[in-house]
């Protein structure tokens, strides 16, 4: 334990430690996913968030349990930051009944309505209209809730994105648009796909506050998201954050990464969001190497337990194949 922790860390230091722990949880969870995928334990598409952890964790710090989240297919980080139980997310990777979507969704479709986490949408841009509707419902009922909607830079090229920017601004809806700009839509670089690469500028053209944020710095993300959420709750209408980040791993497990240089990846890794925060905490004497090691070991232990539980969990019975296509008939 560091000296600060030993004598009872001040609230801010404890908070930073919590942010670090959350990012490390996502990192270790996904490291385990790679291992499990390589071993053939889990299948399907698995889109890793490694490198982007600061975005999910920083944005989630700005919203409350009453607010809603709409996510993408690269959503392990969003789900874990939102507080979906590790066991239920891991069980979903295994397609088990104890999974957060009863195993029917898999990696790309994590849901937990009890935490107002409205999924894992695997059509690029497809979650944006849902966020508009959830926010409209809140507005019609006079609720003070905010809906945070995550999507990538690729979504900005979709027509649905522009329809939704317009509608959110026109109707003054309480949505926080969180554009995770990791510079690639699968294998197509932003500048190869979009005529104007300043994404905040494009969102801003719809008349909403929009700005770019260092998406590798969890404290910067948290600060920006808190400011935006506060403004939205005060009736300021939709806000847009372009969170500049980078995925360190391939697009999905099938991707040979022919479209980018290893040197570019290495350059971005120098700004690894986990290391960045850990370094700062070391510098301010909030964290020792031993602390960091212990934190990682504890998380690895939790993840191993989640894997064991997922393996042991029952699968959905085949007789229930067509369950949840329609709701049960009212009695």
């Amino acid at each position, binding site marked *: 334990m560091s000296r600060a922790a030993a004598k009872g860390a001040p609230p801010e230091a404890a908070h930073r430690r919590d942010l670090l722990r959350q990012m490390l949880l996502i990192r270790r969870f996904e490291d385990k996913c790679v291992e499990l995928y390589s071993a053939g334990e889990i299948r399907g598409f698995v889109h890793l968030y490694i490198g982007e952890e600061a975005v999910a964790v920083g944005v989630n710090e700005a919203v409350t349990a009453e607010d809603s989240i709409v996510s993408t297919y690269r959503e392990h980080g969003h789900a874990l930051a939102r507080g979906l139980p590790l066991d239920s997310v891991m069980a979903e990777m295994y397609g088990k009944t104890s999974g957060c979507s009863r195993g029917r969704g898999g990696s790309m479709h994590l849901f937990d309505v009890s935490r107002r986490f409205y999924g894992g949408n695997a059509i690029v841009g497809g979650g944006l209209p849902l966020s508009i509707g959830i926010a409209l419902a809140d507005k019609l009922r006079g609720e003070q809730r905010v809906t945070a909607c995550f999507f990538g830079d690729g979504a900005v090229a979709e027509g649905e994105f522009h329809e939704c920017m*317009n*509608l959110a601004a026109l109707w003054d809806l309480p949505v926080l648009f969180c554009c995770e700009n990791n510079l690639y839509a699968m294998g197509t670089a932003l500048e190869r796909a979009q005529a104007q690469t300043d994404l905040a500028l494009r969102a801003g053209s719809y008349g909403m506050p929009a700005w770019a944020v260092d998406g590798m710095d969890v404290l910067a993300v948290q600060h920006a998201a808190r400011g935006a959420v506060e403004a939205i709750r005060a009736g300021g209408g939709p806000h847009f954050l372009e969170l500049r980040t980078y995925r360190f791993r391939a697009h999905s497990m099938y991707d040979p990464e022919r479209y980018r240089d290893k040197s570019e990846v290495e350059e971005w890794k120098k700004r690894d969001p986990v290391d960045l925060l850990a370094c700062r905490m070391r510098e301010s004497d909030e964290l020792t190497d031993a602390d960091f090691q212990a934190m990682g070991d504890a998380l690895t232990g939790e993840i191993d337990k989640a894997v064991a539980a997922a393996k042991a969990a029952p699968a959905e019975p085949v007789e229930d194949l067509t369950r949840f296509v329609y709701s049960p008939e009212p009695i």
Partner: protein
Amino acid sequence: MTGTETMKTTYREAMRAAIRDALQRDDRVFLMGEDVGRYGGCFAVSLGLLDEFGPERIRDTPLSESAFVGAGIGAALAGMRPIVEIMTVNFSLLALDQIMNNAATLLHMSGGQCNVPLVIRMTTGAGRQVAAQHSHSLEGWYTHIPGIKVLAPATLTDARGMLWTALQDPDPVLIFEHGSLYNMHGSLTADAGAVDIRSAAVRRAGADVSLITYGGTLSTTIAAAETLAGDNIDAEVIDLRSLRPLDDKTITDSVAKTHRAVIVDEGWRTGSLAAEISARIMEQAFWDLDAPTERVCGAEVPMPYPRHLEQAALPGADAIVAAVRRAVG
């Protein structure tokens, strides 16, 4: 007024009365779509409702089918009961992603957590010389999708009564209103209200052949049945009402009685709803048949503008009569 009193009305007015009733009964209900407010609805269905309920609940949208249909799905997820109007089925293709990949899929994909109690109304069908991008009957495509229910009100009673039942459904329901029906007039009892949305209805009882249809072709089919009656052919006419799920029992009970089936569907023949019904009759009532099933469908052409070509492309009473004559030999 009592339930036995009747009043003159039209299909359009019956639909409007259904929307008004829903808005009065349930605060969670709102209507959203292109020109539903100030314009009064492309087909004047919502005329006057803006004044009565205000712009929050009679909500004009930009021309953004994907966004406002998806917003309806999101609002339904969050506990509202939206009615989304799409001007025509052709335009609904701009929202097909949201209907198919979200509305129809969320409940299953979330392991039963995400109900989408949404009603989408749209106009379908030809007959108004509005050519190849406003005239098609694509409801058969939607019946392909598990997770949604598809309705086709063909009578005043169903125009008045299906919406409320659809709004009570925890799952997404699509209502297809054939554009030729809005001016249909007749009487409804003053207390007309909710109707079931599961069963088909026998609109004309008969013994010799089963004519199976829905929506805009119901009146044409009944006219054909009357013509056939003059030739001593007693045709039974079934109005499917619900296109998904299909009421197999009403169909097969009828075929067991008549031993012949003719399916009338304004949609294109290939890969059609008519093909599905024909297949179900083969699967479930093959040994009851005395003749192959017949299909009278829309011609396989993008709808042409001139009236004579449009009429030639649609299933008419003459074609139905000819098909029945083939079936009865």
